[in-house]
């Protein structure tokens, strides 16, 4: 039946006058809606579902006619209410059938909205790209080919990125593997992979059309029986983003933020509310950047990034923090940073109209061990796995506050302090050697310091954790004061 709500949502984008982030998927959606506006007959089509489905255009002619009668749910527009529950209960073979059905709806719509410029559309918006893929599949079914094919670009780890640091964000990774996944393919696993990819494409397309945001967990829980493990979803979402050559956020897929912040900033959200990050002693979750209009950073003189949540909390609970919290911001991503936290940190530290043109110094406080240095490197230069997303996420000006070699002796003979000192494990050593291989032998001071630190760690066969500072009275205070330059 006609879903009237759908139409209004579309026009909301047009009429709302909300400021759009450049290149956001909302922008492309709005453009798509704008296009619809231009063609009067298309408008009519959208309003009346039946009409749309019964007046197919171009290549979709035969297909929609054929499949129209196959399923009663065919008349519904959009993918959201589509035979999703049915799909999961069906066998893999049958699975492929309903999907193109749904596809034909959307491709029909897409072709309506972009009939004036079909090829340009698909090269510009992710929605268009997904629809192009579906169109191909529909074509293949139409032509009764034996196999349906998808091509996915898989990111691979560069082999030996020696003497290359920081990670060069403009160059593509050293090897890009192009994988063709066929359905039904040679093995059941291949058929499963095909289904997973198509499913994810479907779900993200839905999210893009409706302007909603999915998390990778959401995607997984839509169909746990199909996806099996969260890790599979994670991997394929990243591969799809990489294949399309866009950031994952453009697929309207975000990871749930795990970072915490506390300090002297006010966040102005899209819904009009203003949140003070200093209000909660425990820290607040890093907000999704989509919800944020601007951040007031006038009071911020420094940003402190802490590796561990435990350290974050112990600093936030200290009287020292009471004294300095009005001058800066503290952030933790609880270990290896996620994209949301990295994006937020970049927003805070990079001068732009949205943060009041502030660019305060950023200091990193990590353990003196290979993982700590790796975390620092990810904040600064980005991760190798997600190298295609790095440009907007890295904070190259971040400075290494600690822990450093000279802090190892801070505890002296204290028993508790010595508990912060541990031997390196075999894994630590292997990681340190691998990181050494990737380190540059020339470069600026900061990079050479990291190389020297890794060698020191291996020589001492000991690592120091941030807990060490807590065991020493005023240990953390002195360390922070020395660099943050306050009081």
């Amino acid at each position, binding site marked *: 039946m006609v879903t009237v709500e759908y139409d209004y949502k579309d026009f909301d984008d047009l009429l709302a006058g909300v400021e759009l982030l450049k290149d956001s998927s909302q922008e492309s959606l709005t453009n798509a809606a704008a296009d619809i506006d231009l063609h009067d007959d298309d408008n009519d089509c959208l309003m009346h579902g039946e009409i749309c489905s019964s007046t197919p255009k171009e290549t979709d002619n035969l297909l929609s006619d054929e499949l129209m009668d196959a399923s009663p749910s065919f008349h519904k527009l959009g993918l959201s209410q589509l035979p999703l529950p049915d799909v999961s209960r069906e066998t893999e073979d049958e699975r492929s059938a309903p999907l193109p059905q749904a596809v034909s709806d959307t491709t029909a719509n897409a072709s309506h909205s972009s009939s004036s410029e079909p090829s340009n559309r698909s090269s510009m918006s992710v929605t268009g790209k997904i629809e192009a893929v579906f169109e191909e599949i529909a074509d293949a079914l139409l032509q009764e080919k034996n196999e349906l094919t998808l091509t996915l670009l898989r990111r691979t780890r560069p082999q030996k990125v*020696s003497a290359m640091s920081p990670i060069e964000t403009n160059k593509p990774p050293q090897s890009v593997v192009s994988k063709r996944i066929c359905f039904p393919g040679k093995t059941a696993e291949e058929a499963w992979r095909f289904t997973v990819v198509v499913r994810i494409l479907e779900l993200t397309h839905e999210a893009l059309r409706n302007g909603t945001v999915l998390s990778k967990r959401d995607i997984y829980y839509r169909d746990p029986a199909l996806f099996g493990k969260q890790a599979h979803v994670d991997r394929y979402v990243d591969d799809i983003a990489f294949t399309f050559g866009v950031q994952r956020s453009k697929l309207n897929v975000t990871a749930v933020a795990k970072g915490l912040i506390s300090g002297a900033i006010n966040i102005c959200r899209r819904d009009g509310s203003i949140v003070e990050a200093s209000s909660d002693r425990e820290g607040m979750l890093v907000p999704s950047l989509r919800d944020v209009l601007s951040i007031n950073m006038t009071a911020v003189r420094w940003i402190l990034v802490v590796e561990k949540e435990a350290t974050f909390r112990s600093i936030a609970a200290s009287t020292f923090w009471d004294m300095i919290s009005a001058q800066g911001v503290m952030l933790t991503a609880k270990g290896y940073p996620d994209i949301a936290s990295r994006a937020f940190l970049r927003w805070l530290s990079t001068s732009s109209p949205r943060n009041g043109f502030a660019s305060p110094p950023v200091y990193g406080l990590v353990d003196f061990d290979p993982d700590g240095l790796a975390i620092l490197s990810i904040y600064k230069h980005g991760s190798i796995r997600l190298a295609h997303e790095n440009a907007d996420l890295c904070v190259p000006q971040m400075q290494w506050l600690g822990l450093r*070699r000279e802090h*190892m*002796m801070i505890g002296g003979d204290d028993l508790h302090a010595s508990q912060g000192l541990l*031997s390196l494990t*075999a894994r630590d*050593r292997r990681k340190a*050697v691998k990181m*050494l*291989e990737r380190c540059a*032998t020339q470069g600026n*001071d900061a990079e*050479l*310091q990291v*190389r*020297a630190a890794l*060698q*020191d760690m*291996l*020589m001492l*066969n*000991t690592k120091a954790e941030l807990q060490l500072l807590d065991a020493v009275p005023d240990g953390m205070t002195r360390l922070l004061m020395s660099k943050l330059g306050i009081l």
Partner: protein
Amino acid sequence: MSKQYLQTHTLASTQPAADIFSLAPTPTHLFVGSGSSSIKIYSTKGQVIHADTAADEHPYPLAQTLEKVHPLGAHHVCSSQDGKVAASAGFGGELKIWEISEDGTSWSARGDVVPQDKKKAGESWAIALSEDGKYLAAATHDGRINVYDTTTTASAADDKTATQRIAQYETKGSFGLSVDLSSNGAMTASGHQNGSIYIFNNSTQRLAHSLTGLLKPVRAVRFSPACKFLAAAGDARIIALYDTLSGEQVANFSGHASWVMSLDWNWSGEFLLCGGYDGKAKIWSVERKECVATQTESEKCLWSVRWLPKSASMRNETFVTAGAGGTLAFYREASGT
């Protein structure tokens, strides 16, 4: 009575932030292993006290650089007492043997130490050469000590022949931080991350003593010149002296304020030189069991301290220290001339 030492020369690092991790003096040269990929060899021959020429003012010229031999840096270098053979170990796990030329002026590669079965051998860390350079002892990450015959090294890159291993000593599995071979070839000693120290008898190839007393990582073990004593020190900040025959602890010297990273006996066995994490080098009199001199060049950690071998031209004892910051500092005993 305390001894006086004067700092005579310092050679600052030309490369920034390349720590010097290890020193190995021979009668003619000084090997320097550092975080950079090349090993530098300095000449220690022409030592005069009063400079007659400009050249004499720099008695430690850079004689040779072994370019880019350890891409990730070299963590240990050692030399044979006769000054003919040297060895170096890199962070990437490679072990190389070097030998001096016939005329005694330049060093060349003899080959790499390639174990027969890498997994069984373990990854090498600390190394030590026997007096004539024929044997190389290497302590591994899991506490084993392998003794190799250095004459059977793989000379070419594609030479698949494995280096012959004379002995393998197994211990409880704790990381082998330090190792030494006695000058008479009779014993091998090792110090480990868990504080254990072992002495092995090379002729019977069995464990002779398991020494107790230091509970924290043992970063340096050295036999005295006459092989009567073994000195060991580390994070426990005391230097323990053991009798090698009985295995009993005969002395310990305390006074270091921070971890002891390196130690060396002087030629006569009367004095022990120790370098600490706090940058202080201390000299202990074995007989009087007290510290007779302390030298501080900087606050940066001293990774390695060594006496220069006594030579005829050298009237006063000289030692060299090196560490973080990459500076080599030479000290000479001050005495009435």
